């Protein structure tokens, strides 16, 4: 096999995304780290950046743009200049689905005869997921001098061979990329973390130590991002990695909660609507007792679980979340192994005033304070999870009640993307 380096192009402006795409999260890591991990079989890995300072903690070799505003060809040029290998696979940082297997298949097609091995999807070249030879440097230098930045022009001037994605035996998903927040949400919706992965995660964590689950009812990913951006969740945003997680259909509490605590989908656990309560499979509470577990609910018992929850009602001028928080503190100080606290008031505020309302942000701030205080007391791992999002209506918010007919999602995507947070 021809010796090949990997070049990751992370120097783009991400202007349509509104934030650096390299730092977007994907399955518990950033896009950039996910891609670096996928490239770990390559003997040389370069990351092309616009500013070294931003990436000084990265262990890979950094190359910095000399020609600013020249586009991705500048990053390709800088990697080719630096590398020892005769070829490099160049990858945009916004393709988190790229895998080791895919890269292995791609570079195995290098014959040593071509200058560029360009991947095509449905006949369209994918220059930011293609292979370039170091020998093309003089051609790229000439293009830089003439401010020609289109990779297509390069391909016309050198010995280019095209390779169709289908020939590699991979589907389109492997090179899915994102440019806007909406595309990122769609990527998460289709290929990201799923709510049914939560219960296995909790079970695994419980084998290593104490776990507290803070279940934040109704906290959608878009709502969370809004709160993080406007400073309403300072503790969570500083101390937790919060990812979007795809919930179940319909995106309402009972089926989603059942999936959260069983790790199964509705057709298995039997909870399909707000009316269903009889869970057909074991939950996280199976085999547990009040001795080692605190299951703290709001004012209503939602599902029939092996362990009865302790209910909490609004009283003495305080909402039920305050009393849940108080009991969670008590359970933490009693060193319970497993605490499951279901906070409800974010959902209540989102319904009453809308998911981006000041009332909702205030409630998030209050909850952020509860989690900060609990973090100081609890000697174990805290996981954050929500069940669904809420979208705006004319007079507040709702979710799971208005199936869309756009042919893409059954429900509003804001309802479908909940959050999953783990301590950094």
């Amino acid at each position, binding site marked *: 096999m021809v010796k090949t380096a990997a070049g990751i192009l992370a120097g783009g402006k991400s202007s349509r995304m509104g934030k650096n795409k390299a730092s977007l999260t994907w399955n518990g890591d950033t896009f950039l780290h996910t891609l670096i991990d996928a490239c770990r079989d390559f003997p040389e890995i370069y990351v092309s950046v616009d500013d070294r300072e931003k990436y000084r903690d990265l262990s890979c070799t950094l190359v910095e743009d000399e020609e600013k505003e020249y586009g991705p060809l500048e990053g390709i040029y800088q990697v080719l200049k630096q590398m020892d290998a005769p070829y490099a696979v160049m990858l945009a940082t916004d393709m988190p689905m790229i895998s080791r297997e895919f890269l292995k298949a791609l570079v195995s097609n290098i014959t040593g005869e071509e200058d560029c091995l360009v991947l095509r999807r449905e006949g369209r070249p994918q220059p930011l997921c293609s292979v370039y030879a170091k020998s093309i440097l003089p051609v790229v230098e000439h293009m830089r001098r003439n401010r020609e930045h289109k990779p297509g022009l390069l391909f016309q001037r050198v010995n280019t061979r095209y390779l169709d994605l289908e020939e590699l035996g991979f589907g389109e998903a492997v090179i899915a990329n994102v440019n806007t927040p909406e595309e990122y949400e769609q990527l998460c919706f289709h290929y990201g973390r799923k709510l049914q992965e939560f219960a296995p995660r909790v079970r695994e964590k419980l084998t290593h130590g104490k776990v507290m689950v803070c279940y934040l009812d109704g906290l959608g990913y878009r709502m969370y991002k809004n709160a993080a951006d406007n400073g309403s969740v300072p503790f969570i945003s500083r101390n937790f990695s919060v990812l979007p997680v795809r919930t179940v259909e319909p995106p309402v509490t009972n089926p989603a909660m059942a999936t959260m605590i069983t790790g199964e989908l509705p057709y298995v656990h039997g909870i399909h609507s707000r009316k269903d309560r009889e869970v057909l499979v074991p939950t996280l509470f199976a085999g547990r007792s009040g001795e080692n577990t605190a299951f703290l609910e709001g004012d209503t*018992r939602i599902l029939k679980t092996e362990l009865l929850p302790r209910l909490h009602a609004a009283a003495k001028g305080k909402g039920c979340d305050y009393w849940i928080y108080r009991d969670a503190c008590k359970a933490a100080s009693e060193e319970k192994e497993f605490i499951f606290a279901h906070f409800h008031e974010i959902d209540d505020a989102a319904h009453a005033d809308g998911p981006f309302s000041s009332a909702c942000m205030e409630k998030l701030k209050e909850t952020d304070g509860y989690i900060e205080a609990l973090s100081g007391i609890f000697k174990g791992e805290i996981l954050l999870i929500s069940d669904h999002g809420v979208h705006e209506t004319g007079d507040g918010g709702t979710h799971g009640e208005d199936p869309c007919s756009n042919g893409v999602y059954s429900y509003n995507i804001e309802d479908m993307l909940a959050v999953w947070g783990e301590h950094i």
Partner: protein
Amino acid sequence: MKIEDGLFEGMTPVKLKGKCADGAEYSYQAFSVSEVLGSVTADSLVEFVSGDGRDTLVSGEEILAGDVYLAQDGETYRLVIPKDTHRRRWCKHITEIESEQGG
């Protein structure tokens, strides 16, 4: 306290009529929970045990405010809290009411 025949003897039902947030109209013969319980205090917490598992907890102060009802719903009773217009706490098939002092 078990919900059984005779519990409401001597009490006068009120007629509850209204409209929920989703536009659904309701009409019930109902009894004020504060009257049913008699001795509820503001500090207490009252749990309504439901035959279908949807148990619901209401504070004593909310019950004393007088807007929490046990309404006849076919052969059984359900909780009706008119100000809870989304009917989130309107649990059905109530079999028992348990009162405890709050913490």
